[in-house]
């Protein structure tokens, strides 16, 4: 195989470059944040954090779609699951996330029809196969996932499928990055931007953030070398006092992204304010069905209110998601809260920081 321009350089070379750049930045403490669950997993699996110079720290932000889903949405989904004649379908990890009083997993044990699906199309097929049942798809995920749900909504509409409903709980990453910067309680010197979110959005979506907040942004892939190269590119911008958006993950990501996917999103969804676990309500950070499709909104159709949340007072998922603390600083970590008996979503999801810390031994 010839050397591809889009392939990252070898790890030892990149680490040497990173050390050199960190030295040139002096004693300054540098905090880089990733906002993607797959980056979180890759960071811990590869042990990259331990290889970086002491003054360069990699933080995990609100990049795990399961983790940022507010508890109230879990509670609402549990209420939906308990309705007679309803089957609720969602992605695997979501089923285990504890709500205020129950979880989808527990509702299932109590007799509710809860299906774990790999694709929103599985929910569509289920609705077509069982016309006498109302199938509700609990739709979580960022810009990587929302086009697939948007296409499924459009299929349901086009086929006149009356028994497939949705709980749209999608989130948009750029407004969350802005919210973190505006809150200002975590110093962020650079963003390692999410590779697969950027497939949809294009890297250009981060331009206003880099320009307005003077923060370097690099869209990175998921191999250890990709992440190291992304870090080196961020430090390179800092050394040269640039604040730009660059793409490390050129294999899949372009500045303009996937226009067709974005058109699909715009066809069925519109942006709305959305609540994030740990970050509160962020303007324009969610997607709701367009008014003409409100008949597919499960919570409206079934008359389900999102009840007040009862958070476990010890759970620090919110602070973990903001990069304010690291999981071992949570009083419940590895004690009351483990992957076998998770209290917060960050310990449930394989993309969550707490699960990654627990699994890879940084306690």
């Amino acid at each position: 195989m010839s050397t591809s321009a889009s392939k990252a350089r070898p790890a030892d070379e990149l680490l040497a470059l990173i050390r050199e750049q960190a030295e040139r930045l002096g004693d300054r403490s540098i905090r880089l944040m990733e906002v993607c669950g797959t980056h979180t997993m890759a960071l811990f699996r590869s042990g990259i954090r331990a290889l970086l110079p002491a003054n360069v720290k990699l933080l995990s932000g609100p990049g795990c779609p399961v983790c940022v889903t507010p508890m109230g949405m879990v509670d609402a989904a549990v209420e939906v699951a308990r309705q007679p004649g309803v089957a609720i379908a969602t992605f695997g990890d979501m089923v285990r996330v504890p709500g205020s009083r129950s979880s989808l997993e527990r509702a299932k044990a109590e007799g509710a029809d809860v299906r774990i699906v790999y694709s929103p199309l599985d929910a569509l097929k289920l609705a077509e196969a069982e016309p006498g049942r109302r199938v509700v798809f609990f739709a979580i995920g960022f810009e990587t996932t929302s086009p697939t749900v948007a296409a499924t909504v459009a299929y349901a509409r086009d086929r006149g499928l009356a028994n497939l409903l949705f709980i749209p709980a999608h989130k948009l990453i750029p407004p969350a990055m802005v919210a973190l910067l505006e809150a200002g309680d975590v110093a962020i010197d650079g963003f390692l931007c999410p590779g697969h979110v950027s497939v949809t959005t294009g890297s250009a979506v981060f331009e206003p953030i880099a320009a307005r907040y003077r923060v370097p942004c690099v869209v990175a892939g998921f191999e250890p070398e990709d992440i190291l190269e992304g870090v080196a590119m961020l430090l390179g911008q800092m050394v040269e006092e640039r604040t730009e958006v660059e793409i490390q993950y050129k294999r899949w990501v372009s500045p303009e992204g996937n226009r067709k996917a974005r058109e699909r999103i715009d066809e069925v969804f519109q942006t709305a304010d959305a609540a994030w676990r740990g970050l509160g309500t962020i303007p324009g950070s969610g997607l709701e069905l367009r008014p003409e499709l409100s008949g597919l909104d499960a919570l409206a159709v079934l008359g389900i209110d999102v009840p007040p949340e009862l958070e476990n007072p010890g759970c620090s998922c919110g602070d973990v998601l903001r990069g304010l603390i690291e999981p071992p600083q949570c009083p419940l970590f590895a004690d009351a809260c483990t992957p076998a008996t998770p209290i917060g979503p960050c310990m449930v999801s394989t993309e969550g920081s707490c699960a990654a810390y627990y699994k890879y031994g940084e306690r």
Partner: protein
Amino acid sequence: MGRSASVRNPPVCLSIPARIVAVDGVTATVDVMGNRREADLSLVDEPQIGDYVLLHAGFAIEKMTAEDAAETLQLWEEIARVDFGE
């Protein structure tokens, strides 16, 4: 958890490369590390048999060159081994 379970139920964010082996309307049969799966092609422009696509939640969300796909596939096999107990 074995590989088969992890392939059926990957983390929400995870996307994997796959090769289109057959096309029937908007639906393709794709090859993912030797396994055949269905993929919806409606989100990518002009998909052809032989193209590599990024597969996410049952949809092709982007296309790529064969050479780059080979690298990414190697990574994913590694992840599946390390992360899901093989």
